[in-house]
């Protein structure tokens, strides 16, 4: 299929956009090349979900947002993301495409940790960004959306932790799409150098119920040898946003990339979370939870590709579907030739709360090596009547019993989020979406 919809943004526009931001030459070139490629490339083809008619081209490309002096200025719904008692030391709030707030503790600054918006990073840490930007993890020419992302990237964050630095306090980012029509072509690049560790948590938030726009987010998470990254996220785009969310991890020798993702968008969504276990003894735990409601269609892929010997990948996908929502859950473990002693385990479970909802769990193992272990489990079903009976036999009402079971079902990810406020906020989002 060739692309018929012409983008409203052309070469001149991108050239100007890049120059206004004083981007390095390589970035401008990368954008222009990507724009050219975008026209020729096809949309991605998520398994069993047709996205040909989804809106990926109607949006407003830029909007600014005012800086804030104090977190108190934030609307209440955003305050909820922040630990009130334990004021976040390391926080970045992106309001539309502007940085509204950014702090990083002196201690971390002194150790060489970088936690800044992507445009500042392109100015100040040009070499580092260039070294990793769409190189190790996501390629520009994977399909039309990655190319469009590269061409139109308009926000995001760069995190870098130098060798052997262990960051114990989480870094937190809030992407606040305040303007209901503006698109987020957000690029998040998290690099943990050899022997370092960090925890990063992000929230996406919008409230464009009717206004149509696009989120095309690429996240690259690179753990160099012996590094450990724990990545948490709550996606919460409103109904009007069509979301393509690509989170990709790369783990080198003895490295770990762990994910805890709350995929709570209200609009049509393609979300893929792929980790490449490149190095020996690398490890990834990928846990995702999702709730579908209304008429939204979603496609979730959780995939771990094993290249390294002794690499271990564990996927857990839990989804709850209500109303007329449709979701496909692909859990894919791929073991490449040479990745001996690798272990790929996956579990995909979908809980159906309505007759009209549709859910599909597809566990897939692709194995090109003999000496490995692998396993999968998948189920699609309703709330177990025997569990309900047990809870109700203690006096708990049916509604409350269902609530307990659903929260319990989604707990593996909620509990893993390292920031109490984000955990509570995800619980509230779940509550709102399910009831």
């Amino acid at each position, binding site marked *: 299929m060739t692309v018929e919809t012409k983008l409203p943004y052309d070469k001149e526009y991108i050239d100007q956009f890049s120059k206004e931001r004083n981007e390095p030459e390589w970035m401008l070139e990368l954008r222009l090349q990507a724009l050219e490629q975008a026209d020729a490339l096809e949309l991605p083809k998520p398994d069993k979900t047709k996205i040909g008619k989804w809106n990926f081209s109607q949006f407003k490309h830029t909007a600014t947002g005012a800086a804030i002096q104090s977190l108190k200025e934030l609307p209440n719904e955003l305050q909820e993301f922040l630990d009130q008692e334990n004021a976040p030391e390391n926080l970045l709030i992106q309001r539309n495409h502007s940085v509204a707030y950014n702090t990083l503790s002196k201690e971390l600054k002194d150790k060489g940790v970088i936690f800044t918006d992507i445009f500042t990073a392109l100015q100040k840490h040009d070499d580092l960004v260039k070294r990793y930007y769409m190189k190790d993890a996501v390629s520009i020419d994977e399909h039309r959306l990655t190319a469009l992302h590269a061409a139109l990237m308009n926000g995001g964050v760069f995190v870098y932790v130098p060798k052997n630095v262990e960051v114990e306090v989480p870094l937190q980012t809030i992407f606040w799409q305040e303007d209901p029509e503006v698109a987020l072509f957000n690029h998040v690049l998290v690099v943990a150098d050899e022997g370092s560790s960090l925890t990063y948590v992000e929230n996406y938030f919008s409230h464009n119920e009717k206004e149509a726009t696009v989120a095309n987010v690429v996240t690259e998470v690179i753990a160099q040898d012996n590094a450990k990254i724990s990545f948490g996220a709550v996606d919460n785009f409103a109904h009007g946003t069509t979301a393509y969310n690509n989170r990709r991890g790369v783990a080198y020798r003895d490295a770990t990339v762990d994910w805890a993702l709350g995929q709570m968008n209200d609009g049509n969504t393609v979300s893929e979370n792929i980790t490449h276990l490149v190095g020996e003894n690398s490890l990834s735990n990928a846990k995702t939870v999702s709730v579908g409601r209304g008429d939204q269609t979603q496609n979730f892929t959780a995939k771990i590709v094993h290249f390294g010997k002794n690499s271990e990948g564990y996927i857990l996908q839990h989804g709850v579907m209500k109303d007329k929502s449709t979701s496909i859950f692909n859990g894919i473990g791929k073991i490449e030739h040479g990745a001996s002693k690798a272990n790929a385990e996956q579990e995909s479970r979908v809980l159906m709360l309505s007759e009209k909802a549709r859910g599909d769990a597809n566990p897939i193992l692709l194995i090109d090596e003999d000496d490995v272990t692998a396993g999968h489990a998948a189920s699609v079903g309703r709330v177990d009547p025997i569990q309900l009976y047990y809870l109700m036999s203690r006096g708990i009402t049916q509604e409350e019993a269902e609530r307990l079971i659903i*929260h*319990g079902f989604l707990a593996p990810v909620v509990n893993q989020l390292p920031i109490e406020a984000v955990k509570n906020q995800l619980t509230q989002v779940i509550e709102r979406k399910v009831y």
Partner: protein
Amino acid sequence: MAGSTLEIKNLHVSIEDKEILKGVDLTIKGGEFHAVMGPNGTGKSTLASAIMGHPKYEITEGSVLLDGEDVLEMEVDERARAGLFLAMQYPSEISGVTTSDFLRSSINARRGEGNEISLMNFIKEMDSALDYLDIDKNMAQRYLNEGFSGGEKKRNEILQLLLLKPEIAILDEIDSGLDIDALKIVSKGINRLRDENFGCLIITHYQRLLNYITPDKVHVMMQGRVVKSGGPELAKRLEAEGYEWIKEELGIEDETVEQKA
């Protein structure tokens, strides 16, 4: 008169169109401990599950009244709030829900809105019950029954019993799979509740539990009916002589509900 009264009258119960209970009559009053005994497959657990409202069991005839109220018209949660409790033979595992959250929700469900137990009091009560039953405090933070050993599940049922303080409790094979130490602890928990306001129906096919909990009345079930009732001495005789003599006395060849009429 103190306590509640549970009256089971001519109860007939089917599962998937197969009749299991064929007319059970039993009355349990506050202050009384009844034991229902009998070999496997005679309908004992069906009786327990049917009274509580297990979704697989269909009541085809008869009635169950709690202080004159029709239990069979109530939803499962209403039965519990009315004062019934069933310690289950195979309690469900509920992933992601901690035992402690579940206990608190259960206690609050019985107490009703506006009368919730304070967190402090809840923790105090729970800790004291955990101690009493010699249960590791970590259990409160573990997911409900998930990965619990058979013995841990049984203790957890008794923990719930102590905290929920029902008027009438039914204990379905609470002794199965327990070693002697666990059996003593579980019995200690049950005996603690013994007073004029608490009635209990103990279902077991071993007499050994009754060495620790002395029943006031003993009933033997065969072929989906209570075929013989007596005092504690009946249990002793069953232990010594088995069930054969009852079968002979009553002319029963196959005691299970499988028997052809």
